[in-house]
C-alpha cells in the first residue's frame, strides 16, 4: 500500500512540476524517476527485480530488440529503449535535413507551384503539414512551416494566423496516421508490437478521412480572412527562390536519399523484421557518416532534453505499473463500462482527448498503455481496437488548445514573435470544433469497422 501511495504521489508531483515549469521538464522526470527507484522500488518494495524490469537494459542486448521474426513486442514495463533510440535516430536525420535546407526548399517549391496565391498555399500547406508529420516530428514540421508562412504573409500581405492554426492541426492529425508520427504512437507501437503498416491501415485511414473533412472545415472558417489577391508574383519568385533555400547541394541530395530510405524501411519493417530501434540507429549512423564537417553541428542540435525526459518518464510510469495502480484504473474503466465495448471506446477516446488537450499527451499515453493491456486481458476486449482508440484520442485531443501539443506551442510562439499573438479564444475558436469533429469521425469509424 505504501508503495502505491508513493508511486502515485511521485506521479502527481511530476505532473504538477511539469505544468508549473519551475524546472526544465527532463530534470523533473529524471528527478521523479530517481525518487521512484529509491522510494518505491528500494525503500518500500525492496524489489531488485522491479528495479531491473523498469530499467529494462537487458532487453537491448536481445536479438528481438533489433530484429524480430514474428510480431513480438518490447516489454511495456519500464524504459522503452526502442522509442528512445528511434526518436534519437529520427532527430539526427531531421537535423541533417534541416541543415541542408530541405524543409525551407519544400515550402518554397510548393508556394511557387501554386503561383503564390493565398488560398492554394493555405490548402497545399495543410496537406504538406499532414504528410510531413506522418514521418517527422510535428515540432520540426511546424517550426519550418510557420516560419515560411509568416514570411509569405509579410510579402503577400495576408494574416498568417489562420494558416498557422490550420497547419498545426493538420500536423497533429498527420502524426496520428503513422507509428512514427507522434511519440504516443511510437510508444504504443513498440510496447504492444504493432507495425508501421498496422498504424497506417487503422489510424491512418481515420486520419486521411478526417483530413478531407478538416480541410473543408478550415477553408470555410478562414476563407474570408485569406481571400486576398497575391500581387507581384514575379518579384516574389525572385525573393523566395526554392534554390536559395538549399545551403549545401551535396548534403541536400544525401538527406533526401536518407529520408526516402527511412520511409521505405518503416513501411516495410513488418516484412523485413527490422525493428524501429534498428531503423533509428541505422538512419542516425548513415546521417552522421555522410555529414562530413557538419557532424558536430547535427549532434549539438539533437534534442537530448526530450530523450532524457522520456527516460525519466518511463521510470515513473514503471513505478505505477509495478505497484499495480494502473490495474486499478483499468478495472475501474471495465466496471463503469460493464464490459460494453461501445462504452469502453467512448470512455477511452474522450478521456484521452480531453486529458491531452490540457496535459502532455506523452506521459498520458505511456500511463494508459498498461491500462488498456489490463483492460483487454480482464474484459476480453480486442487490444488493437483499444490501442487505435488510445492513439487517436491522445494524438487528436492535443490539437484543441494552444498547450495541448508541442507543435501548438511552437506554432503560436512563432506567430507571436512576428507580431501576431494568438490568444486562447482565437486558437480554440476553430480548433475545438475541428477536434470534436475528428474525434467523432474516428469514433464512428471504430464502431463501424471493429464492432
Amino acid at each position, binding site marked *: 500500500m505504501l508503495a502505491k501511495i508513493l508511486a502515485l504521489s511521485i506521479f502527481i508531483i511530476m505532473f504538477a512540476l511539469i505544468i508549473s515549469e519551475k524546472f526544465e521538464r527532463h530534470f523533473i522526470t529524471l528527478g521523479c524517476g530517481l525518487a521512484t527507484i529509491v522510494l518505491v522500488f528500494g525503500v518500500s518494495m525492496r524489489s531488485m527485480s522491479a528495479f531491473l524490469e523498469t530499467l529494462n537494459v537487458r532487453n537491448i542486448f536481445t536479438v528481438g530488440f533489433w530484429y524480430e521474426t514474428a510480431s513480438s513486442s518490447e516489454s511495456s514495463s519500464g524504459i522503452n529503449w526502442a522509442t528512445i533510440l528511434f526518436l534519437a535516430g529520427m532527430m539526427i536525420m531531421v537535423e541533417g535535413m534541416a541543415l541542408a535546407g530541405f524543409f525551407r526548399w519544400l515550402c518554397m517549391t510548393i508556394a511557387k507551384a501554386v503561383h503564390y496565391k493565398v488560398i492554394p498555399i493555405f490548402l497545399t500547406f495543410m496537406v504538406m503539414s499532414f504528410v510531413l508529420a506522418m514521418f517527422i516530428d510535428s515540432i520540426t514540421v511546424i517550426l519550418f512551416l510557420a516560419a515560411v508562412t509568416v514570411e509569405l504573409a509579410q510579402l503577400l500581405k495576408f494574416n498568417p494566423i489562420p494558416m498557422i492554426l490550420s497547419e498545426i492541426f493538420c500536423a497533429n492529425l498527420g502524426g496520428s496516421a503513422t507509428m512514427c508520427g507522434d511519440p504516443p504512437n511510437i510508444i504504443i507501437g513498440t510496447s504492444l508490437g504493432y507495425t508501421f503498416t498496422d498504424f497506417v491501415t487503422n489510424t491512418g485511414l481515420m486520419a486521411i478521412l478526417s483530413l478531407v473533412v478538416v480541410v473543408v472545415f478550415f477553408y470555410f472558417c478562414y476563407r474570408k480572412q485569406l481571400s486576398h489577391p497575391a500581387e507581384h508574383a514575379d518579384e516574389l519568385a525572385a525573393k523566395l527562390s526554392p534554390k536559395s533555400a538549399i545551403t549545401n547541394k551535396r548534403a541536400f541530395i544525401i538527406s533526401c536519399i536518407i529520408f526516402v530510405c527511412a520511409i521505405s524501411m518503416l513501411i516495410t519493417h513488418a516484412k523485413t523484421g527490422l525493428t524501429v530501434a534498428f531503423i533509428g540507429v541505422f538512419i542516425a549512423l548513415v546521417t552522421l557518416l555522410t555529414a562530413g564537417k557538419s557532424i558536430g553541428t547535427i549532434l549539438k542540435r539533437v534534442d537530448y532534453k526530450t530523450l532524457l525526459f522520456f527516460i525519466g518518464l518511463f521510470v515513473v510510469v514503471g513505478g505505477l505499473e509495478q505497484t499495480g495502480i494502473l490495474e486499478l484504473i483499468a478495472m475501474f474503466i471495465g466496471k463503469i463500462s460493464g464490459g460494453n465495448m461501445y462504452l469502453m471506446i467512448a470512455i477511452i477516446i474522450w478521456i484521452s482527448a480531453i486529458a491531452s488537450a490540457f496535459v502532455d499527451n506523452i506521459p498520458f499515453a505511456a500511463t494508459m498503455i498498461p491500462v488498456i493491456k489490463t483492460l483487454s486481458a480482464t474484459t476480453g476486449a480486442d487490444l488493437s481496437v483499444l490501442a487505435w482508440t488510445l492513439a487517436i484520442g491522445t494524438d487528436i485531443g492535443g490539437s484543441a488548445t494552444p498547450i495541448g501539443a508541442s507543435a501548438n506551442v511552437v506554432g*503560436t510562439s512563432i506567430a*507571436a*514573435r512576428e507580431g501576431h499573438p494568438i490568444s486562447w479564444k482565437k486558437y480554440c475558436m476553430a480548433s475545438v470544433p475541428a477536434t470534436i469533429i475528428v474525434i467523432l469521425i474516428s469514433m464512428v469509424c471504430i464502431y463501424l469497422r471493429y464492432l
Partner: protein
Amino acid sequence: MSKQLIISLGREFGSGGHVVAKLLAEHYQIPLYDHNLLKDIASEHHVDAEDLKKYDEHPRNLLLSRTVNGFSNSPEENVAHMQFDFLRKLSAKGESFVIVGRCAETILKDNPNMISIFVLGDMEQKIARTMECNNISREAAIKMIEHHNKTRKHYHNHYCETKWGDSRNYELSINSSRIGIRETANIVAQYIDTRRNISEPDNMLRG
C-alpha cells in the same frame, strides 16, 4: 546628446513615476518609451499595435501557458520578449532614451550608460493621486493600486532574477511622496548628471 544616456525607470502605481520619466525625457530631450514602444515594434512587423497592447506588461498565465524548447504559447511572454529585443537593439545602436518599466534595468544592465531609477510612494499619497487622476472613489483607488502593483511585480519577477522594487536592483530608489513629483525629477536629474560626470575616466581619477 553626445554620450548615450538610457534612463530605466521602474515605478509603483500612483507614485507619479511616469510623470517623472516624462520630465526627465523633456529635460534631456530624449525619447520616452512606455507602452508606445509597441507602436514602433508593430510598425516594424507591419501589424496593428492594438493587437499587442492588451498583453503589455502582463505576467503569463501559469495554467494556460506552456514552454517547449524555448517557445512559449503565452502572448504576454512573447510580447514581453519582443519589447526586450527591441530595447536591446536600441541600446546596441547607441540611442538615448527613457524607458518606463519593462524590466529595462535588468535587460540593459550590461550597458554602462544605463542608469536605473525606482520611484515609490507612500500609500496615502498614492491613493490621493489615483483618486484624482482617475476620478474614482478611495476603495476603487486602493483596488487599482493593488492590482497594478501586483501585476507589475509578477511580470518583473518572472523575467528577472532580482525582485521588483528591491533597492539593490536600482542605482537610486526615491520616494516621490516626500518631496513631490517635480522635485523628485530634479533630484533624479542631479543624480544622473553627477553619475554621468563621474563616469568619465578623468573625473573618476580626480574623485
